[in-house]
């Protein structure tokens, strides 16, 4: 019954060369994405979420960045083996990406129509007129009113929400099988955020696109994703179905992450309470070796947490975590 995953990331390592030494920003990362699925990735800022996304696109700035090991299999063919020309055919066509900052992600000096249709013309060798038709159609699909007029406008004439819609239209214009959304709504208001997620959901259904959603907001994940992977300092610490993770987090970090978020309550009561906190800060990636990177902040820390990489612990059918404490407690 189990399908072949659409996209598989195996043992991905990404390094950055800096003047202060090499930084391993991704450390043997494994992920997979099934067709039609929405995979959520959460983690604190700087844990390597964007790097993971950019590695899939092979857009890591090189130098200083460098994918040092691993495989990225799209329909079982390794993207890392493609040459640049072949990779260009994949980008924007089979895998698309939308970025965090709608304000700066569109080129300010070209009309949005041009920027959307450029993608179509690049990958579908469409004529100008056909591409224009398709562009209008796409903009309509993402809920931009009167797209015939809008295509002549420039990014600065649109609001943030509109721009993000344009980005989505652009990303989806070639019906990609995978859409990576890297914090698509962090810069937007909640009401706009809600609109964007509605749009993404609807599109996912209509086009059967698989989505990787990157965010640092647990509640967004809870609402949107089917499955979630929690990342910490370049590694995956826990992975499972959304409900499993939220209702039953196992890894100490996941637990902390979920507890420290103030969730909106129906009745807040009159007294205010303290939030749970995870003490300390995210470690400097340069200093991470083979130990558990969460060890310095972990309340269940044990001696060998500082020595060896934590093992994978299977918790449920699709739920596993990497932790010595869990391993011991089994």
């Amino acid at each position, binding site marked *: 019954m189990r399908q072949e995953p659409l996209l598989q990331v195996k043992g991905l390592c990404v390094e950055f060369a800096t003047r202060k030494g090499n930084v391993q920003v991704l450390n043997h990362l494994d992920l997979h994405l099934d067709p039609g699925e929405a995979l959520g990735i959460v983690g604190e800022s700087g844990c390597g979420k964007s790097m993971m996304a950019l590695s899939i696109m092979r857009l890591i700035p090189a130098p200083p960045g460098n994918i040092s090991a691993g495989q990225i299999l799209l329909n079982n063919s390794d993207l890392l083996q493609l040459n*640049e020309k072949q990779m260009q*055919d994949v980008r924007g066509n089979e895998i698309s*990406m939308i970025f965090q900052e709608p304000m700066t992600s569109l080129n300010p000096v070209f009309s949005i129509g041009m920027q959307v249709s450029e993608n179509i013309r690049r990958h579908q060798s469409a004529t100008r007129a056909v591409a224009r038709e398709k562009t209008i159609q796409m903009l309509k699909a993402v809920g931009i009113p009167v797209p015939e007029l809008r295509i002549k406008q420039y990014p*600065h004439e649109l609001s943030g929400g509109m721009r993000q819609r344009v980005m989505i239209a652009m990303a989806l214009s070639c019906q990609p099988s995978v859409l990576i959304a890297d914090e698509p709504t962090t810069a937007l208001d909640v009401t706009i955020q809600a609109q964007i997620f509605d749009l993404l959901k609807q599109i996912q259904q209509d086009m059967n696109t698989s989505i990787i959603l990157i965010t640092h907001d647990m509640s967004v994940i809870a609402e949107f994703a089917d499955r979630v992977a929690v990342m910490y300092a370049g590694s995956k610490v826990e992975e499972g179905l959304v409900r499993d993770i939220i209702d039953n987090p196992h890894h100490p970090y996941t637990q902390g992450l979920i507890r420290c978020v103030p969730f909106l309550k129906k009745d807040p009561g009159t007294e205010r309470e303290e939030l749970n906190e995870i003490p300390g800060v995210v470690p400097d990636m340069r200093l991470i070796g083979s130990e558990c990177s969460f060890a310095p902040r972990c309340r269940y820390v044990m001696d060998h947490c500082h020595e060896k990489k934590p093992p994978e612990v299977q918790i449920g059918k699709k739920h596993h975590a990497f932790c010595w404490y869990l391993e011991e407690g089994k």
Partner: protein
Amino acid sequence: MKTILPLLKRIAYSLMLLLAVIVLNFVLVHLAPGDAVTAMVGDMGGATPELIAELRVEYGLDQNLPTQLFKYIAKMVRGDLGISFTHNLPVIDLILEHLPATILLVMTAFFMAILIGTVLGIIAAQRPNSLFNHLITVISLSGYAAPVFWTGLMLLISFSYYFPIFPSFGMETVGFRGTFLEKTFDVLKHLVLPAVTLASIYVAVYSRLARASMLDVLGSDYIRTARSKGLSEKVVVYKHALKNALLPVVTMAGLQFAQLIAGAVVVETVFSWPGIGQLAFNSILRRDQPLLLGILFLSTIMVVVTNLITDFTYRILDPRIK
């Protein structure tokens, strides 16, 4: 209406600026010791007091300064810039006659500098820490660091004297008879050394600027977006990045143009290029007030007009400005 009004505002403002420039120059030139008639008669090898008095009246120099200024502006509004003392010709004719040569020189140098500078800058930006980048830095800075007349003299000695490839002076071979094509070629041959000399100063400016702004643009989010669309590196750099990176270059170019005209004075002197620069230099040396004022006025106009053009170009390049 919306687009015309700001333009009108700019033009009205430019006119005021021009007026201010005229007044300043006029006052300055007239406050300096000595007056034009003494220069004129000195040039004649001396003259009788009667002749001097007569000339004073003739050129209106016997009136007080405000009256002279007022009359000058009144005449100027009618397009009359007065009569050159030394050439005895209407200033406007003199200027118009020398203008094409300067425009040819300055424009050639201007576009040469922008083109070479931008290309060098872009190449350097794509390999920010390479040896090549350092090489470009040093080469372009060399052009900037060498005094322009020195560059000119060195080129002159090298390519006109020891290896006589290019003519040494002037804009054309006088009395040269030939087809239009041959004449054009003749002018081009004369143009090479002065234009290269003048351009050499500004290549550095543009290449540094283009490099910096290209580096900036290449690191921006929308370039990553363009790449994520699967566009080839060529399209990314020369379509998406270039247009943005050009904005500061255009601004700078507009600002630099004023200096380019002035820089032409030196180059024109070295190469005997028959342009405004030489005319200006001579008018300074011989205190030809009407001519000097006319030239200052003209170069201000040119600067103001280039600023307007820059503005306009900017509007074309950058849709954010409306």
